[in-house]
């Protein structure tokens, strides 16, 4: 179905996850270190990267940053619960989602599908291209440009922006966004949303401290506009 690159240092876990995902129809390539993973990117050209945070040598966060320098490859972090600090750093480094280990293959599969799923909601009955201030959003081509200059958004950022802009001025709680954008449960970690919003603002806002497009409603959540 999709090409998944797994970077995991523990051979048993690596093998197990590889086996589980392959059974679910994914084309899985595995690497034991961050360096090997980066080297495998060019040849394998994966659709998605499953990245363990705790790696010998180059850490998962460093790998994540390196990739985000030039690519919008969807990245899902593998993490242990309690490594919350790393989760935040990983999300800030540009990861789209995270999975807490140990996880069953069906959970990992669900996350992968969610990240890779094309945005299809809100596009019916609407013009393909919408303009909000300096921002131009192409819902069909899935591109965003600001003042004519195309922006490179990570999959989670793009999905968040599309979701929010589909209903301008409507407030979404973190839980709603987790359910609708990330397809997590209601009770997942709200910092996933916060980190993504922060990254998105860094790309689309003129002034990050005084956001215009993605606004915070303290105590409730986020909304798009009003401009």
């Amino acid at each position: 179905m999709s090409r998944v690159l797994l970077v995991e240092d523990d051979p048993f876990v690596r093998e197990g996850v590889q086996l589980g995902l392959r059974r679910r129809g994914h084309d899985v390539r595995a690497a034991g270190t961050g360096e090997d993973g980066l080297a495998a990117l060019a040849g394998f050209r994966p659709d998605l990267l499953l990245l363990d945070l705790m790696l010998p040598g180059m850490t998962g966060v460093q790998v994540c940053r390196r990739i985000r320098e030039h690519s919008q490859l969807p990245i899902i972090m593998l993490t242990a619960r309690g490594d919350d600090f790393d989760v935040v750093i990983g999300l800030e480094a540009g990861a789209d989602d995270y999975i807490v280990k140990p996880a069953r293959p069906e959970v990992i599969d669900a996350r992968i599908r969610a990240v890779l799923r094309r945005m299809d909601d809100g596009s019916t009955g609407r013009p393909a291209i919408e303009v909000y201030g300096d921002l131009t959003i192409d819902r069909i081509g899935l591109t965003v440009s600001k003042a004519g200059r195309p922006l490179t958004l990570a999959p989670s950022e793009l999905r968040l922006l599309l979701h929010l802009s589909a209903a301008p001025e409507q407030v979404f709680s973190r839980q709603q966004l987790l359910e609708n954008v990330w397809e997590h449960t209601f009770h997942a970690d709200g910092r996933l949303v916060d980190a993504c919003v922060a990254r998105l603002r860094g790309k689309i806002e003129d002034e990050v401290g005084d956001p215009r497009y993605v606004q915070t409603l303290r105590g409730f959540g986020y909304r798009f506009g009003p401009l």
Partner: protein
Amino acid sequence: MITVPRPGRPRDEENERADGAGPAAPTRRRSRVRAFGLRTRLLAAFLLVAAVSAGTTSALTYREARNALLKTAQDMAVSTFRDQVERTGWRLPVEEEGIEEILRDLARTGKPRPWVVFAEYGSIRASSGENPVSSVITPELRRAATADRYGSFERVVKDGVPYLTIGMPTVFKTGPDSTLPTGLVLYAVMRMTDEQINVDALLVAARNGALPGLAVALVPALLAARSVLRPVRELRRAARSMGSGRLDTRIPVRGRDELADLADTFNESAGQLERSVGELRDAEARARRFASDVSHELRTPLAGMLAVTEVLDEDADRLDPDTAQAVRLVSAETGKLAVLVEDLMEISRFDARAAELNADEIDVAEAIRKTLQVRHWAGDDRIRTELPPDIRARLDPRRFDVVIANLVGNALRHGGAPVTVLLRTEASSSGTLVLVVEVADRGPGIPAAALPHIFDRFYKADAARTRSPGSGLGLAITLENVNLHDGTIRAGNLPGGGAVFTVEIPLRAEEAVR
């Protein structure tokens, strides 16, 4: 794969304990100056001693000085009187004529002051003054002069005026060695007004000396009180400091007195206490680290095993029945083991105080509904809910989900249907609004003996049911999660049968119903 406890949400143990102990322990706020405190008593004792010594000294000094003053005056008067009398000559019998002249003569020579001289002889009464007989001279003096024939004196206070009265019987020589009373007795009466003035001055001086003495005594009294109270205060502060957990508290030892010994003993005891507590803490920390390490080490292989259980499950049908059963068993137990390890890690994090509260403002009714929905309990007719809308609270959604899921799961496993989940807000006794979630079942309830231990780790209320689907840590984790929200949880039985768990989490005013 050892996670180090990171600085997360501040859950300051000391603050919390201090706050917690605040209303529970009787607030013994003592005023600095107590009516009968050590300082007051020390001061009083000091002043008392000073007053006694100053008073006694003054009084004794005063008396001595007064007596000396009077003695000087009296002795001088008596000796002068005798000298003067001895210079007089009398014919016997004494004749009244001319007697007053002699008396006036005598009166002028009075020392230290002029006196009035009275003469008594037979029936003759004469004086240098206006009245021939003095009203001041007492019968006692007269008897001493006439019967005992001694020169004697007496102080007499009459109408507030002190007098010195001297009685002087006279004798004449009948031979070189023999004398014979003449029968003539001379009296001198002298006002002691000057002496009185001097004595009064003495008294004033004594009093004026004693009062500043008292005032001066106040200074060493305060110093002494301070020198005693300061170590006592230090001791109290140190004891309180120890009580609040700072076991490294020590007192500076000054001098070699009893208080220094006390401080020494305190320090020694504090040292031993600190060592013992330190050893206990080390042991406990080692035990916890061990549990944490074990679960960490278990997690990595479990991650791999869990990844392949699906493969086992899917292919089990193609294996021969025995192998299939074995494979399914391994798969199922692996899942349980994963849950157990996760719970152990969670508990370890609470123990290490590394648990973080990622609070977000959420709709509580929705959160509970989602919890039931995710666990596929939403359409379950064994569960009844009463979830009023529009209650918003600042909660950690994941931890709240764990709390509700554990309670409901526990009720479904151990209790009987129907399980009811009740949500409401109410004002607590202290006036703050609290969020209340009640999970009740209609089962047999919790045995009374089990109630105090229901939140203990791995506690099994029913000894027969040694294996339960849960890890045995569910309620312990629930308790920790509620506590992390500054809330409380309690277990009880309903009057009509069945167990009820009540969670109360305080709401802040602005987060209440909007």
